[in-house]
């Protein structure tokens, strides 16, 4: 692969091209989208978590003004399930169809969908639906309340971890837990479904991270050819993973639209959004470390248990990053899952690994204390210079630089490691650190680029911008290669009519999408070069490839002609290029990961048991940042989310009946502005050209990993309490009186 030698636009701080649309309300979010003659759906949630729906009383609801119909088990079309295959591109989050039977598997499961002329009418009628249940015994309220160790679903081993642990002079064996967390994305899940052509053509607006997965799944469920299903998602008010794959509200809404012959829109109220569209499952992890007196790791064992639902088998693979984290000959990970009576969990920003990194990076800190070593020095001592899991060199790894640079900016050298030693008035300062890591992946992607007669460029790709800035980096890429200003590049994303693009997830969008956009751009330029060098062209007789591209013009022999002039001369509306790219064989030769380091300062006021994060200094190594403004924004947002994970967030299920009781944005706490510390984020700029021509690895998730561990480690430094259960709340910190 050849590097782009000069980066005029790529790599430059670029304001979001969709910023004005978002600011002015023109941005077409699903929740805002309206169609004429549209009806509104409002689901009715089950109020128990485990049992049978015995009967529904609908008379009062049906009699409410504006109510058109109420769909429920026994009054719902026969549909097919999706095969739920990632490989075939029809994965869904919950396989069970809505209203499929009368079983209740979790609190909030839909028992009916009220459809009415207005949202308020649908909601009011939904409150009037009365249900009678038979509650089954044996409700499983969460893994914390269960002795069940679940079912093993994955493992990894190298060397002799048990043996090495048995003979290591210094050992550590601790258990870490993390509460279930909600994505609490700003835009709730929403579906607007419309049928055309005598019910043979389904058009769905959905707030989704993957229009193609949803299209394919809907085609399976409604038994239609995929080309007869369209999914549109122009703007997404974030997802953090819970909009990767379709949830039942979309199926119910599409079915209602066909059943009633009118478009139907369902916007989930926050409570139902939190109950029915996934969460990071609670986890319990045991870490065993064995080390020599000099700090060399002899053994790492990482056993994870995560929750799933009773209807699906979701695996939150906590040990994913562990085998490649440190130079250690003997490593084992085990992953188990336990079905509980909650809604089905799903990926949430850095799924699995963020939980695993909390446990591992906490344990490393504990080991450092046991060894009386500086935790930064312990990490460097066990630095994995190549990938110990695959025995391959890293494509580009600068974790050492992250650690050193962040330590320097933070002032780690002046930290007094003695517990509670750094006082400031009523407060004690605690300082802790942790490493961050997230895999770097790439998916196949296609794109189309048209150089238009007016000199502007149109770029299209069926991936999505979930708020991270994909529109902007696509425009930057086209601008980079054509020399046309960013403002003259129109980008369209989020439609299944466009060339197939990847899921917006796994921090893979940038690395997957830009090469395809670049290929399409080059293809369009080649088409234009052909036109220009053809008969009657401005450069008639020259070799097409000999023409240079400069600021929206073709140049050769001291002459430059604008794209628009060339197209006009040939009476062309435009020339179009196609590009389709996929990962190559680079993975045979290298391992690809992103890295980072977080240094955290907490302030602990023991007199009032108040703990706050005061300062975070991070260095992140993700290759090249295509748009440093948006990239920094991703890391800063992730750090704030990490503060939530560390100190605030947890879904509360009633220990008696597994009812979710804090399903709202007030009682489920995420950090507010006043919780946000001073943030100092550095993006190292080491382009990873072994990964793709742009040198970019993706930045959505890396910033979250390690934050909670760095906080917990800082809390230990301040308080002397080693807290292994997230979130760390005042209960565990207040001194009993």
């Amino acid at each position, binding site marked *: 692969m050849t590097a782009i030698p000069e980066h005029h636009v790529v790599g430059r701080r670029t304001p979001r091209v969709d910023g004005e649309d978002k600011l002015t309300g023109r941005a077409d979010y699903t929740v805002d989208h309206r169609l004429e003659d549209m009806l509104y759906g409002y689901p009715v949630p089950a109020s128990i978590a485990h049992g049978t729906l015995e009967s529904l009383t609908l008379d009062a609801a049906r009699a409410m003004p504006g109510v058109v119909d109420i769909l429920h088990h026994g009054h719902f079309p026969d549909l097919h399930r999706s095969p739920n295959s990632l490989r075939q591109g029809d994965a869904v989050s919950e396989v069970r169809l809505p209203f499929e039977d009368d079983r209740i598997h979790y609190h909030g499961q839909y028992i009916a969908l009220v459809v009415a002329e207005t949202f*308020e009418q649908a909601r009011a009628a939904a*409150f009037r639906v009365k249900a009678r249940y038979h509650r089954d015994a044996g409700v499983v309220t969460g893994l914390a309340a269960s002795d069940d160790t679940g079912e093993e679903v994955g493992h990894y081993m190298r060397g002799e971890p048990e043996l090495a642990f048995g003979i290591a002079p210094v050992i550590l064996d601790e258990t870490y837990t993390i509460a279930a967390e909600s994505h609490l994305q700003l835009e709730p899940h929403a579906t607007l479904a419309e049928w055309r052509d005598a019910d043979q053509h389904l058009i769905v607006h959905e707030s989704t991270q993957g229009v193609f997965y949803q299209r394919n799944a809907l085609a399976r469920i409604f038994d239609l050819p995929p080309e007869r299903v369209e999914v549109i998602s122009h703007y997404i008010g974030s997802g953090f993973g819970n909009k990767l794959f379709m949830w039942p509200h979309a199926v119910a809404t599409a079915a209602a639209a066909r059943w009633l012959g009118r478009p139907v829109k369902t916007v989930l109220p926050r409570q139902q959004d939190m109950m029915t569209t996934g969460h990071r499952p609670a986890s319990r992890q045991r870490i065993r470390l064995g080390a020599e007196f000099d700090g060399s790791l002899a053994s790492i064992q990482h056993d994870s248990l995560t929750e799933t639902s009773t209807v699906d088998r979701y695996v939150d693979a906590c040990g994913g990053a562990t085998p490649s984290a440190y130079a250690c000959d003997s490593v084992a990970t085990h992953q188990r899952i336990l079905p509980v009576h909650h809604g089905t969990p799903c990926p949430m920003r850095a799924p699995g690994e963020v939980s695993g990194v909390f446990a591992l990076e906490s344990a490393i800190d504990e080991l450092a204390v046991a060894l009386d070593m500086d935790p930064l020095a312990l990490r460097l001592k066990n630095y994995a210079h190549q990938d110990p899991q695959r025995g391959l060199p890293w494509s580009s790894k600068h974790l050492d630089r992250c650690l050193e640079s962040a330590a320097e900016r933070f002032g780690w050298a002046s930290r007094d490691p003695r517990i509670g030693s750094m006082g400031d008035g009523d407060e004690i300062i605690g300082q802790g650190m942790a490493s961050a890591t997230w895999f770097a992946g790439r998916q196949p992607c296609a794109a189309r680029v048209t150089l238009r007669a007016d000199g502007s460029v149109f770029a299209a790709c069926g991936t999505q911008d979930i708020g991270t800035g994909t529109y902007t980096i696509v425009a930057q890429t086209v601008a980079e290669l054509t020399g046309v200003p960013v403002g003259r590049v129109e980008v369209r994303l989020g439609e299944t009519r466009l060339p197939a693009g990847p899921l917006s997830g796994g921090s893979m969008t940038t690395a997957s999408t830009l090469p395809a956009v670049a290929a399409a751009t080059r293809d369009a330029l080649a088409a234009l070069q052909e036109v220009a060098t053809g008969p009657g062209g401005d450069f008639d007789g020259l070799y097409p490839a000999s023409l240079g591209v400069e600021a929206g013009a073709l140049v050769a022999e001291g002459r430059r002609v604008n794209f628009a002039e060339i197209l006009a001369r040939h009476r062309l509306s435009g020339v179009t290029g196609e590009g389709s790219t996929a990962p190559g064989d680079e993975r045979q030769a290298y391992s690809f990961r992103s890295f980072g380091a977080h240094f955290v300062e907490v302030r602990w006021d023991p007199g*009032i048991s108040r703990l706050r994060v005061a300062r975070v200094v991070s260095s992140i190594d993700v290759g090249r940042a295509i748009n440093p403004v948006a990239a920094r924004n991703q890391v800063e947002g992730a750090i704030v989310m990490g503060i939530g994970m560390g100190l*605030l967030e947890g879904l509360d299920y009633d220990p008696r009946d597994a009812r979710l*009781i804090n399903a709202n944005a007030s009682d489920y706490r995420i950090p*507010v502005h006043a919780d946000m510390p001073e943030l100092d984020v550095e993006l190292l700029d080491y382009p990873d050209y072994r990964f793709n021509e742009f040198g970019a690895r993706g930045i959505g998730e890396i910033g979250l990993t390690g934050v909670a561990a760095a906080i917990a480690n800082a809390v230990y430094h301040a308080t002397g309490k080693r807290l292994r259960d997230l979130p760390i709340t*005042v209960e565990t910190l207040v*001194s*009993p009186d």
Partner: protein
Amino acid sequence: MRTFAFARADSVARAVESQQGDPASAFVAGGTTLLDLVKLDVMRPSRVIDINALPLNTVERLPDDRLRIGALVTNTDLAYHPDVLADHPLLSQAILAGASSQVRNMATTGGNLMQRTRCPYFRDAAAACNKREPGSGCDALHGVNRMHAVLGGSSECVAVHPSDMCVALAAIGATLTLHGPRGEREIEFADFHRLPGTTPYLEHDLDNELIVAVTLAPPLVPLGAAYVKLRDRAAYEFALASAGAMLSLDEELIGEARLALGGVATKPWRCREAEASLAGKRADTAAFEAAADLALADARPLSHNAFKIPLARQAIVRALRDAARRAREDDA
């Protein structure tokens, strides 16, 4: 759609009249509690009377120097009112510790007194709640009750009164002016909110009446005041425990002390015994801790909130300490 009659009142008398004796009628001012709970189907008013046009939005100084606050004065306006800042800094601090700027801009003085609990079982129409549905039981008693009361609860209800402003009012002392079908009457703030006992659905002492004003007791002189609110996150968050303290100091001896608690009790919680214990004592940690012990002597934890007792103790000691410091500064 659930419909209700809606009327805009142009006078206090007409507002009261508009209720037509209907117990399911509700006044709406800022709407920060009512609208939320209507959307959740927890409050189901049959008639809503908009009182925002009533002339109750001023703070005036009475001839006896007390401050009389109109019921429609917003929380924001009250917190930043120069007379309030000068005479009753505790009230300003407490208000600004609550909710968010957006909510404080809408919420009113009378509405703050009337706000409903944040108990999640109260706010979930499918749960058992004696406050919402008399006789249905209390799911909080043995459920997730981390946020619930350790003082003033009963076997029927342990819901916390969520207000910060009312904690300051409890400490300062205030008289409420109520207007009802039989005209105006005054009651003490301390008598306004009721303990749940066996009737948790009766939350206050209104009888088809509208709160028209809150008149604050005269301030202590010289005054030190501190509101300490301990909570999970730094803003937009209800208290786990809060303490409002006021002290007057004569040299190092406490003249008069006031203390009230929030986040731990079923109503704004004045600690009279603790206050009495402080009078005439040296303003030091030992006195503050002894007062805290007295204030919490009757505290009874539930399954998930034992931590609130030591936490409230810390809030009290810190609030008294800071109040004393400010009294010294004021004196200096």
